[in-house]
């Protein structure tokens, strides 16, 4: 994080140039003088200050604390907590905007479960997640492993690999839709150039899902590579030296030093990737529209269809609750993992 100190240009808010009050100015100079000594210790601050008088003083302190909290709390209440509760409530209602909701028990779940698209959506989402793990998981690790050995053009590689991440996902999707064009698309031109049989890519029922996984991997792998690289740089060099003295070859060093040393990051990124890919929407929506023959309808896409095409918000919420329940398992695992790492 220390590398971010140069970022002040973007955070105009944080500058102290607007400070004109005299008390503030004295406070500034005093703290500025103290700062280098105190903050370099940078340890967690001890528990709350001693209570300065009870009663009204404390109440005023509390009021002030909640004044600071208010804006954030309101937004969390309105746009996180309330919708989470509402998803569960509406899942058991017939809900059309504008008219009074009506309790229908588990009818929404029944209707959704009997939708032939339901099975397709879950199958596609799980296949997508699995393929994304197979393709999108090993490749970034291998790339990071190789990049970490290269001693030249380091900055160039990092910028280039992250470039697709900064391209808006919609643009990546439209770009690959054009590449996948069976007639004049770049993908088939490349195959023809190599004298290989051409493919239908995103237009073929068998190849559509894999085609979308390729797009998602291309667009997202940069972030993963950079995180792996940072993790690889923290492996102490002595471990490799010791392993080499013990006669470990290259692959053995990867297996017995690199992988155990980065185990935590690997697991963390795997969970994050599962959570992200199970919510895939942009690629199928933009590239295939869920087709051909429902081959790329995902759960989130189906939620969108229920809400905005069928105007069936009850069904959409029933689906959301199911997706939430599954994702919560992975999220909980991820949180436990990161919290335990913090405590360590």
């Amino acid at each position, binding site marked *: *994080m220390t*590398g*971010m100190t140069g970022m002040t240009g973007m*955070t105009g808010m*944080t500058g102290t140039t607007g*400070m004109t009050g005299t*008390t*503030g100015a*004295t406070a500034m100079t005093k*703290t500025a003088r103290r*700062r280098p000594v*105190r903050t370099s210790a940078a*340890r967690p*601050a001890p528990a709350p*200050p001693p209570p300065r008088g009870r009663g009204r003083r404390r109440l005023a302190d*509390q009021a002030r*604390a909640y004044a*600071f*909290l208010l*804006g*954030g*709390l309101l937004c969390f209440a*309105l*746009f*996180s907590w309330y919708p*989470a509760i509402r*998803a569960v409530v509406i899942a058991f209602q017939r809900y059309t905007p504008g008219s009074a909701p009506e309790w229908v028990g588990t009818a929404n779940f029944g209707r959704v479960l009997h939708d032939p698209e339901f099975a397709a959506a879950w199958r596609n989402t799980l296949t997508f997640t699995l393929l994304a793990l197979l393709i999108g998981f090993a490749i970034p690790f291998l790339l990071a*492993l*190789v990049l*970490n050995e*290269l001693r*030249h053009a380091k900055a160039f590689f990092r*910028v*280039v690999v992250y470039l697709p991440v*900064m*391209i*808006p*996902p*919609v643009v990546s999707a439209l770009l690959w839709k054009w590449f996948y064009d069976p*007639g*004049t698309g770049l993908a088939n031109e490349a195959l023809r150039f190599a004298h290989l049989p051409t493919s239908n890519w995103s237009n073929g029922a068998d190849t559509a899902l894999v085609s979308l996984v390729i797009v998602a991997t*291309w667009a997202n792998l940069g*972030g993963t590579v*950079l995180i792996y690289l*940072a993790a690889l740089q923290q*492996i102490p*060099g002595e471990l*490799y030296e010791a392993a*080499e003295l013990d006669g470990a070859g290259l692959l053995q*060093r990867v297996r017995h030093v690199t992988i155990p040393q980065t185990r935590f990051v690997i697991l*963390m*990124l795997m969970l994050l990737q599962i959570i992200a890919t199970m919510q895939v929407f*942009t690629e199928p*929506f*933009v590239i295939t529209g869920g087709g051909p023959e429902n081959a790329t309808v995902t759960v989130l896409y189906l*939620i*969108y269809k229920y809400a905005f095409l069928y105007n069936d918000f009850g069904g959409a919420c029933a689906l959301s609750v199911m997706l*939430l329940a599954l994702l919560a398992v992975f*999220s909980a695992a991820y*949180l436990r993992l990161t919290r335990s790492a913090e405590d360590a």
Partner: protein
Amino acid sequence: MSSSPRTLVSPAALARPRGRALYWAVFTAVVVLFALAFLFPVYWMVTGAMKSPDEVARTPPTLVPEHWHLSAYADAWDLMQLPRHLWNTVVQAAGAWLLQLVFCTAAAYALSKLSPAFGKVVLGGILATLMVPAQALVVPKYLTVADLPLIHTSLLNDPLAVWLPAVANAFNLYLLKRFFDRIPREVLEAAEIDGAGRLRTLWSVVLPLSRPVLGVVSIFALVAVWQDFLWPLMVFSDTDKQPIGVALVQLSQNIPLTVLIAAMVIASIPMVALFLVFQRHIVAGIGAGGTKG
């Protein structure tokens, strides 16, 4: 960094002639691979928009445009009303960034330093939202925005529909709180003794110390809004209010291919430019954020 630290391959192995040859072979292979995989698609997009409509549909394709046309870029700018959609995106991203900085910073400061009653409960409630992936809640969130409780106002087609939900970002709030936790209490007390109020302490002591984390949060906030698709697709049904990503998809059906590609290039420029300017900080920030969890 003075000398490169020891990695998987030992420096001794690299110093040998065979090792050196192998190193340069791998190096060249990686350069070619990266150029083909990551730069060539971008090159294809930028030059594709400069080809004539005939040339872009030709097979086999031309590697370099025969004639460099800029008309597709001009057409995209005018026909697709890109200035309006870019402006919409800027307004949405800037507002979300500003509100997030103000409200998340204030809330994180309160939770970290003002010890509010039930602070633990509030923090727990905020962290619990990390468990609930945002996309899975878009439908009830949409219904809330379409008809706000109590005041019964609709925020649809209003930038507020992006700004306010952006504040409910548990990840950024937690990043800020953790950073504030590490500012020693004595520093704040010194300011208080000098007569500074809570707000002044936050503004002139805490925030100047927090520049690094504010930079990270700013980038996360801007990129998140700029790259989001599903939420603005739901919230902005009015074409005139749509950000550039949504507008691109909506208009992509009935627009000539070269014009669409030109619009895609233009839509990519702001974030790519931001990245190229701040690439050192972004690359370092991602690495640090990722490994620290």
